[in-house]
């Protein structure tokens, strides 16, 4: 198939940037979206132009590195996939495809489609851990039974890949699904409950400091999340935050 691509090009953080039109021909429907981008880049290199910079790594939907806002949706029109798992069969011959970076004031563009997501790192550093040192004498793994239900729910929250699609999708650029998932994972496990109040307070404070917007419960993040992280995690974070603010302070 032949396609017209409207791709955001921006030389660096200070550059204003603009959408530039490109044409790619003979794209196989079996290609992944990023393989289509590879074809474009090879074409650009051949022509002596600069290839489009975009983040990608594992190309199997787990590392969370790839981003891209494709035709108005984070990771494109398919559900439950990252951009690297999006296949060209989702598009038709002659289509025009908009390709933009993930947008949020807290995710500044580094170059072209590459954005800086280190705000997520700082939120995690504010409390996304259990304070336990490494030692060969930690208590036995089976010392505290954890109900299968809680363990499974914690696992569902923990499958977040930190890609930032929730922020990119949210009309308010809110990071609450991401933060909620991490808060939930630990809140659901007995190991995480000891410092639960401090954790949620600190992570939310850092999230606010980074300039993410406020959740208005549109639910768009849950739909666009490639891992299907549930809104329930935001509700749980809200509860945790409330109890941390009024009960445990």
């Amino acid at each position, binding site marked *: 198939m032949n396609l017209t691509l409207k791709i955001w090009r921006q*030389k*660096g953080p200070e550059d204003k940037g603009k959408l530039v039109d490109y044409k790619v021909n003979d794209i*196989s*429907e*079996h*290609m992944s979206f*990023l*393989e289509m981008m*590879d*074809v474009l880049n*090879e074409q*650009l*290199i051949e022509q002596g*132009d*600069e*290839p489009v910079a975009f*983040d990608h*790594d*594992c*190309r*199997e939907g*787990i*590392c*969370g*590195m790839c981003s891209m806002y494709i035709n108005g949706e984070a990771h494109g029109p398919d559900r439950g*996939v990252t951009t690297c*798992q999006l*296949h060209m*069969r989702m598009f038709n011959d002659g289509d025009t495809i908009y390709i933009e970076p993930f947008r949020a004031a807290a995710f500044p563009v*580094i170059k072209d489609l*590459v954005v800086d997501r*280190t705000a997520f*790192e700082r939120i*995690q*550093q*504010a409390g*996304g*851990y*259990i*304070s*336990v040192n*490494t030692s*060969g004498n*930690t*208590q036995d*793994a*089976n010392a505290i*039974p*954890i*109900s*299968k239900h809680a*363990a*499974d729910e*914690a*696992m569902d929250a*923990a499958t977040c890949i*930190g890609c930032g699609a929730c922020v990119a999708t949210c009309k308010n650029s809110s990071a609450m699904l991401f933060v909620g998932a991490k808060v939930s*994972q630990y809140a659901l496990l007995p*190991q*995480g409950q000891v410092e639960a109040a401090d954790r949620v307070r600190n992570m939310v404070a850092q999230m606010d400091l980074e300039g993410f917007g406020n959740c208005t419960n549109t639910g768009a993040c849950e739909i666009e999340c490639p891992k299907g992280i549930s809104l329930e995690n935001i509700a749980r974070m809200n509860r945790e935050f409330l109890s941390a603010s009024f009960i445990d302070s």
Partner: protein
Amino acid sequence: MSVLDSKVPKGPIKDKWTTYKDKINLVNPANKRNIDVIVVGTGLAGGSAAATLAELGYNVKAFAYQDSPRRAHSIAAQGGINAAKNYQGDGDSTYRLFYDTVKGGDYRSREANVYRLAEVSANIIDQCVAQGVPFARDYGGLLDNRSFGGVLVSRTFYAKGQTGQQLLLGAYSAMNRQIARGKIQMYNRHEMLDVVKIDGKARGIIARNLITGEIERHSAHAVVIASGGYGNVYFLSTNAMGSNATAAWKIHKKGAFFANPCYTQIHPTCIPRSGDYQSKLTLMSESLRNDGRIWVPKNIKDAKAIQQGKLKPTQIAEEDRDYYLERRYPAFGNLVPRDVASRAAKERCDAGYGVNATGEAVYLDFASAIQRYGKEQAKIHGIKNPSKEKITELGEAIVEAKYGNLFQMYEKIVDENPYKTPMMIYPATHYTMGGVWVDYNLMTTVKGLYCIGEANFSDHGANRLGASALMQGLADGYFVLPYTIGDYLADEIRTGAIATDTKEFEEVESEVKERINFFINNKGSKSVDYFHKRLGKIMWDKVGMSRNEKGLKEAMAEIKALREEFWKEVKVPGKAEEMNPELEKAGRVADFLELGELFAKDALMREESCGGHFREESVELEGEQKGEAKRNDKEFAFVAAWEYKGEPADAVLHKEALEFNDIELKQRSYK
């Protein structure tokens, strides 16, 4: 006497590690504050090492080429992690895990290291649970296990199909805690481009800031390389696009010996390539072979028709199908080990029986499993004379419950419904057992330079067991290196901060800059990928699943010629002082073009078949095992550690003899 000293402690294998730890030199807490350690790579090994070293009080500088440590490719491991916990009471023990790992590695690993690995495996699970890793649990709330890779006990802990992700996020959370405390300085989007040695000791690295292009000097009292494997030398592999051998190769060029590069694991159940644009291969869990039957058409005419799209697999009659694994290995059938299954698929496809347009795919068929489960279910539900449709419906439900996520993934990628038409699979490079040579302390042949995780060579021998890569990465990072590095650093407490404005740093930095400038200024005509793909093809065709002398010699010559062409013709757009992904790739491919040749040289030297390394000249000539891999313990029970001497072809071989005092060497048989 070899120049290699493995420093394996004396004494019975069961006591080696404990006794050694008791006598090792320690650094007192006040002094740790004055000691810097660089960790390159933040996967399971690097991440866990960085966190633990920081907890101990060292100042850690950690480097990752991605924008976060959480994105390291350990995250993609699906299956699980082995540990000798014996929670299932099925007779597992440290010794059994040790035994299985050594046997699985086809007796080419270092016994003492493997025993230590098995010993600390149980601690890993305790540690991870304490960190909040949500392992699968049973209804009683205790940890669940499954059996993996054909071993006799259930010792694999798992978190759905995302065990690697959860373990990495555990290590990442431990890192975050230390980053917040200021004990780890995290350098995201930085790539190590060389190591700096002062007076024979590793004292720092030169790294490139991948956002600004700035070349930076970083000093430390010890350097730890945890940069993963070199599977991307094949271009197509299950590795991440950015996975590279640069850190490992650069230290090799600075004096670290590189061991057993030819030991590569080719995983049999990957989704086949669909065209030349393919950028990577996706692995599907090997558990699929528990129920899927592997076949190709019996008649070449049918195979051709399928390749041309004129025939569908479902149209081929039962008697016209060749279930070649069941035919060749009646005892193990479709469950033969990874290397055997991979080679058998290649053999059929090379003979022209491949089943997709590229001719490089075989069928993995669930039709008979669906029927079998369907009939079983009909019986259980008391359905008399069930219709064929009903049986299929019931059977599909069972298959979906077991493999639903994998089937879904397959359908997303291939756009075919694997419930209705057989899946297509083909082997792909998955893991590299070879790597930088290290002693019992995990120190390379360069003082103060350590190598852990997949990047080193020590624990998996010639072939890695399922669910043991995660175990090794975390064992090295959480429980081994943090002890053993103290032994070296105990002598560094009086060294003081290491300056970076010395001639040694300057020299290495200018080498690095020179190379970058070469790429930017070279007026070539071909992209980096063009060379990488060609290298991959040579490697796959001649240094792939089965190797012979003629092919390996050709490969060495072809890689050398390709390398020369690369340095003339490579074209790198953009500038050095900016984010430039093509420039990053160019440096990595330049290193692969050297490593590939050493890889072939090692394979050529090793005139035996063992584990992932299959030499066509070394097969059983008669008897039941006729045509199968033949190991040569008399002549090749050694680690091949290569010393860099300029060109890869000139590398000098050093042998570390492997002694097995606690295990009897046996030939594998799956007939």
